[in-house]
C-alpha cells in the first residue's frame, strides 16, 4: 500500500506543488508585513503626510519678498509706485528709508531681498522728459527668489508705467513707443494651480519608495537575520523566492497609489482627466521596474544600513533628475541623458499627462514600452546576480 508521501513523489507533476509553495511564501510575507508596525505606519502615514503637507511647501510662487525702498524723491508718483508694489501681495515693505547704504545693510543682514531705489528727480523727469530711471538691487543668495522677485517687480513697474501713461493720454493720438501686450491662456491647468502639477509627481515618488526600497530592505533583512540561509538550504526555487518577494510589494505599491489618488481627490480636488485604467496599467508595469531595481539593490548589499544609504542616494538622484521640481528641458545634456534612464521621469510624465491632459494608452505607449524595457533588464540582472550560494 502506498502512503501519501510515496504517492506524492510518484505523481510529482511539479506545478501544483509549486503553486502551493508560492502561495505559502506569499502568505508568510504578508503576515510579516502586517505584523511590522513600522511598515503599516509607512504605508498609511507616509502618503498622507507627504501628500497633505509637501505640496503646500513645494510652491513655485514666491511670496513675502522683503522689499526695502530707498525713496530720494518723496513725491506723489513715488508713493503711488510704492503703494502699487506693496499692494501686489508678493512684497512686504521691510523698510522705507532715504539712504541706499541703510537699505544695503538690510540686505547684508538678510532682512531684505530687494532694494528699489527711486532717484531724487523721479517725478520731475517723468513729467518733463517723459522718462525716468529706477534702480533695483537684488539679493541673489536664493536664486529662485531673486529671479522671480526681480521679474515680479519689473512687471509691476511696467504696469505702473502703462497706468501713468493712460492717465496722461486720454486719446492715444500717437504712441510714444510701440507697446505689445501679451495675454495668455493656460491649457490643461487653467488656473496654473501648481498643486495639480506637484501632487501627481509626489505620488510617483511615494510609489517608487515603497516599491524599490521597502522591497530591497525586506530582502536584505532576511540576509542580515540569517533567515535567507535557512531558505537557501531548502529546495525552494530561486524564482519562487523572488516572486514571493515581488508580488507583495507590487500589491503594496498599487495600494499606496490608490490611497494617494484618493487623497489627491479629497484634499485637492484633483480628479484625473484621463482614465484611471491608464494610470493603473502604467503603474503595474512601472512597479515591476522599480521592484527589479529594489531586488538588484538587495543583491549588492549585505545589511540594511548599506541598503538604506544606497536607497537614499538613489532617491535623491531620482527625484532631482526626474523633472519633478525642475524642467528637464533646461538641464545640461548629460543630466538629460540621466533623466532618460530614470524610470521615475517616465511615471511623473505619464501621471501629469493623464491627470492634467487626459492622455490615453496610445499617447503613453512609448513611455510604457520604455519602462517595460527597464523592468525586463533590471529583473533579469537581479535574478542572475541573486545566488543561493556563494
Amino acid at each position: 500500500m502506498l502512503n501519501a508521501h510515496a504517492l506524492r513523489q510518484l505523481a510529482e507533476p511539479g506545478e501544483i506543488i509549486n503553486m502551493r509553495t508560492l502561495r505559502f511564501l506569499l502568505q508568510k510575507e504578508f503576515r510579516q508585513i502586517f505584523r511590522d508596525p513600522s511598515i503599516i505606519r509607512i504605508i498609511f502615514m507616509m502618503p498622507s503626510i507627504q501628500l497633505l503637507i509637501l505640496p503646500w511647501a513645494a510652491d513655485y510662487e514666491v511670496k513675502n519678498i522683503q522689499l526695502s525702498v530707498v525713496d530720494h524723491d518723496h513725491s506723489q508718483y513715488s508713493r503711488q509706485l510704492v503703494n502699487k508694489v506693496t499692494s501686489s501681495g508678493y512684497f512686504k515693505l521691510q523698510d522705507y528709508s532715504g539712504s541706499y547704504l541703510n537699505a544695503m545693510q538690510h540686505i547684508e543682514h538678510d532682512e531684505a531681498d530687494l532694494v528699489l531705489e527711486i532717484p531724487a528727480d523721479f517725478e520731475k523727469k517723468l513729467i518733463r522728459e517723459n522718462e525716468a530711471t529706477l534702480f533695483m538691487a537684488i539679493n541673489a543668495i536664493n536664486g529662485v527668489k531673486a529671479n522671480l522677485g526681480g521679474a515680479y517687480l519689473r512687471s509691476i513697474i511696467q504696469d505702473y508705467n502703462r497706468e501713468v501713461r493712460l492717465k496722461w493720454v486720454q486719446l492715444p493720438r500717437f504712441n510714444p513707443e510701440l507697446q505689445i501686450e501679451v495675454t495668455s491662456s493656460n491649457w490643461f491647468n487653467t488656473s496654473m494651480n501648481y498643486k495639480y502639477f506637484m501632487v501627481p509627481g509626489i505620488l510617483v515618488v511615494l510609489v517608487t519608495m515603497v516599491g524599490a526600497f521597502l522591497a530591497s530592505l525586506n530582502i536584505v533583512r532576511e540576509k542580515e537575520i540569517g533567515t535567507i540561509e535557512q531558505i537557501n538550504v531548502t529546495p525552494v526555487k530561486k524564482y519562487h523566492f523572488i516572486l514571493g518577494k515581488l508580488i507583495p510589494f507590487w500589491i503594496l505599491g498599487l495600494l499606496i497609489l490608490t490611497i494617494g489618488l484618493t487623497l489627491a481627490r479629497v484634499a485637492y480636488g484633483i480628479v484625473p482627466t484621463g482614465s484611471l485604467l491608464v494610470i493603473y496599467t502604467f503603474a503595474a508595469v512601472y512597479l515591476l521596474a522599480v521592484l527589479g531595481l529594489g531586488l538588484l539593490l538587495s543583491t549588492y548589499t549585505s545589511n540594511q544600513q548599506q541598503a538604506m544609504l544606497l536607497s537614499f542616494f538613489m532617491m535623491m538622484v531620482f527625484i532631482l533628475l526626474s523633472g519633478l521640481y525642475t524642467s528637464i528641458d533646461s538641464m545640461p545634456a548629460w543630466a538629460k541623458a540621466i533623466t532618460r534612464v530614470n524610470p521615475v521621469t517616465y511615471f511623473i510624465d505619464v501621471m501629469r499627462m493623464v491627470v492634467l491632459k487626459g492622455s490615453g494608452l496610445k499617447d503613453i505607449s512609448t513611455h510604457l514600452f520604455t519602462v517595460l524595457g527597464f523592468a525586463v533588464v533590471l529583473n533579469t540582472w537581479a535574478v542572475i546576480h541573486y545566488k543561493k550560494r556563494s
Partner: protein
Amino acid sequence: MYSVIANNLKKQYGKKKDVVTALKGISFEVEQGELFGIIGPDGAGKTSLFRILTTLLLPDGGTASVDGLDVVKDFKAIRQRVGYMPGRFSLYQDLTIEENLDFFATIFNTTVKENYDLIKDIYSQIEPFKDRRAGKLSGGMKQKLALSCALIHKPSVLFLDEPTTGVDAVSRKEFWEMLRSLKKQGITILVSTPYMDEASLCDRVALIQNGEILSVNSPEGVINSFRQPLVAVKDSNMLQLLNDLQNFEGVQNAYPFGEYHHVVLKDGYSANTVSDFLQQHNYHQPDVKTIRADIEDCFIALMKVSGEL
C-alpha cells in the same frame, strides 16, 4: 556506505592580500546513522565546513558528498534531504512557532502532520506556546524550535552548527538526549561544538583546529591514545603553583583544570616525583594524585602538539 564523505576540502576567503584560509584540506567519513562530533575552538573552520556540506558554500578545492550526492553537482538533491540548523537562530522572529514550522514543512513539500512522530518528543515541549512569536522565546525554546524545523522534512542527514553555544547546562544536557533519540531513528547527525566535554557524547569525534583535522576517533579511542602519565595537583596558592610546575623539568604541559591543575608528565616521571619536587619548593602538603585522562586532556595535548609544529 558512508553518509558523508569529505575529501581534501579547501576554502579560502578574501582576495590577494588578506587571504584567510578557513579549511586546509579536510578529509573524513561519517557512517550512516552515526552521531559525529566536530570539536574545535572558534575560528577553526567548523561553520565553513558545514556550509560547504549543506551546499551553501562552494569549496575552493577537494570534493565532498552527502548521501552519495556531490555537494557541487547534485546540490538540488542534497537540499531535499539534509536538515541544517545554523549556529545563529535564523527562523522568522515575527512568525509564531506554529507558523515557522508550517512554513518550513510547506517549502519542503510536506506537512507537519506527516512527520509529526519524528519531532514529537521535541516539539511537544514547545507546543503549548505555539502561538508565541519565535523572537519572544527563550534560548532553549528557540533551539527546540530550530531543531524541529530542521527535522520536519525527515532529512537523512542533520547538520547542527554549534547548537549548544549560549545555552544553559540543563538545556545542553536535554539537547544531547534529544540527539541520542534521533540517532535511534537512523538519522546521521553531524554536530559541531566548541565544548570539549560534549565530545564524549558522540559516537566519533573529529578534532579540528586552524582548518585542519588533528584526529578522528571514537571518544574511547581518543582517551586510550593518551599514554603519558597525568596528575592533578592542588594547593592553596594556585597561581604560584602553576608557575612552579611549569619550571619542573619533568613537566610537558601544565594547565588549570577546574579546582586542580592538570600536569602532563614526561615518561619516567610520576605523582611521587611531582610531590617531591613541590616539597623541595616549600609546599607543605601538596595534593597530588594520578588520574586517568579525560577527553579534554587529550584534546589539549593534541592541540599543543599541533601548535608547536
